[in-house]
């Protein structure tokens, strides 16, 4: 079973938040976290809340939006950031976002747009190589568990909807972080850490 994608929505309007939450929950693929009405405390929240997807109203960004965005992405490199757009936003600010969600879309368009964002990001995300953290990311943990269960990279790629290349990058990072190379050794690691 695939785990739900947890979504953090940073949006001041309750109408917009509840509307979006309703659409997301209908799909059965998302777990919508409690919302934040502004972005100032997001830095502190990200490490504990650990969302898989961040949807943020761009007007809430600080005076230095580029730095703010990159600090979020450094905290959660595996988390795509989507701009939630329904009012006028400066084009220069919009250019900072790779993904945009326009609230005038239909519910099915919104669902498919977000699904493609999640898939596209997992696909294109080059897992960072020399990250300072030696803790496994959520995605690496997913891959580790499947490796430990004896799945091949191809099977893992199919299961997680990512490319074999990405799976192999994750595997390289797992070995780099844990110091363990063999499948049997990774299975022991996974069991010792209660991952399976």
């Amino acid at each position, binding site marked *: 079973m695939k785990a739900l994608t947890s979504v953090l929505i940073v949006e001041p309007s309750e109408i917009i938040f509840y509307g979006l939450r309703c659409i997301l929950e209908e799909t059965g693929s998302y777990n919508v976290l409690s919302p934040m009405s502004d972005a100032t405390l997001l830095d502190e929240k990200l490490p504990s809340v650990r969302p898989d997807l961040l949807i943020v109203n761009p007007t809430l960004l600080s005076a230095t939006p580029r730095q703010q965005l990159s600090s979020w992405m450094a905290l959660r490199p595996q988390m795509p950031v989507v701009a939630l757009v329904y009012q006028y936003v400066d084009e220069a600010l919009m250019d900072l976002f790779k993904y945009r969600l326009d609230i005038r879309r239909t519910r099915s368009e919104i669902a498919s747009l977000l699904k493609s964002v999640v898939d596209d990001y997992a696909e294109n995300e080059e897992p960072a190589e020399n990250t300072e953290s030696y803790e496994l990311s959520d995605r690496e943990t997913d891959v580790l568990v499947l490796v430990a269960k004896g799945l091949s990279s191809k099977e893992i790629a199919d299961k997680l909807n990512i490319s074999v290349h990405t799976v192999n990058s994750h595997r390289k990072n797992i070995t780099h972080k*844990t*110091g*363990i*190379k*063999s499948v*049997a*050794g990774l*299975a*022991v*690691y996974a*069991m*010792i*850490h209660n991952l399976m």
Partner: protein
Amino acid sequence: MNNRLFSKKMKLADIIAANHNIILLLPRFGIPLGFGEKSVGEVCDAAGVSADFMLLICNVYTFDDYLPDIEVLKNTDMSPLIHYLLESHKYYTDERLPHIEAHLHHIADRVGGRYGQILKQFYGDFRNEITEHFQIEEQLDFPKLISLQQGQADHRKLPQHHDKSHSTLVDKMNDLTQIVYKYLPGNVLPEETMELVFDILQLAADIQKHALIEDKILTPYIAWMERSMK
């Protein structure tokens, strides 16, 4: 670079001072301790061992960038090779692996529960795998070289297994040390655990050189012998 390799005139004691791991190789050549100030040549003559061959192995064990090419192998008495490799296998399977297993089980039992069970299982699988690997070599590669050395053509095809399965085995030994010293609870039998880690590291280093000898000496030597028979 060949200048700094060990030679017959050197004292065996000096060679061991340069690389103490060589002490572990002596029993495989049937050379007892207590050799005093004798040179390698003298010790080998007394034990009835080819000094050239013994030096070849000592050099591979000591100098990481040294591997003899086929010209060196052609000019060395390689008749003791299979006996040496068999003795190494025996040392691993009859002495080191059971010794490590006894310690590991002792620690695993004290750790108890899931951890202990997982650890034993991992080691058991590893031991089976390495034992099976040795058996395949002893049933295929070794008899083939013996026939060739006796001047008989041997048309058995060898599996292309070695390089890869050697590195898997070495990886597993490294993984085992990592698991033991990084992830097991540190407060259970700490001294015995450290000894265990050193025992596994020692064995892993030994087997790494052993694998190198099989991949870079045994395999090319068999290929050369086969070509020269034709």
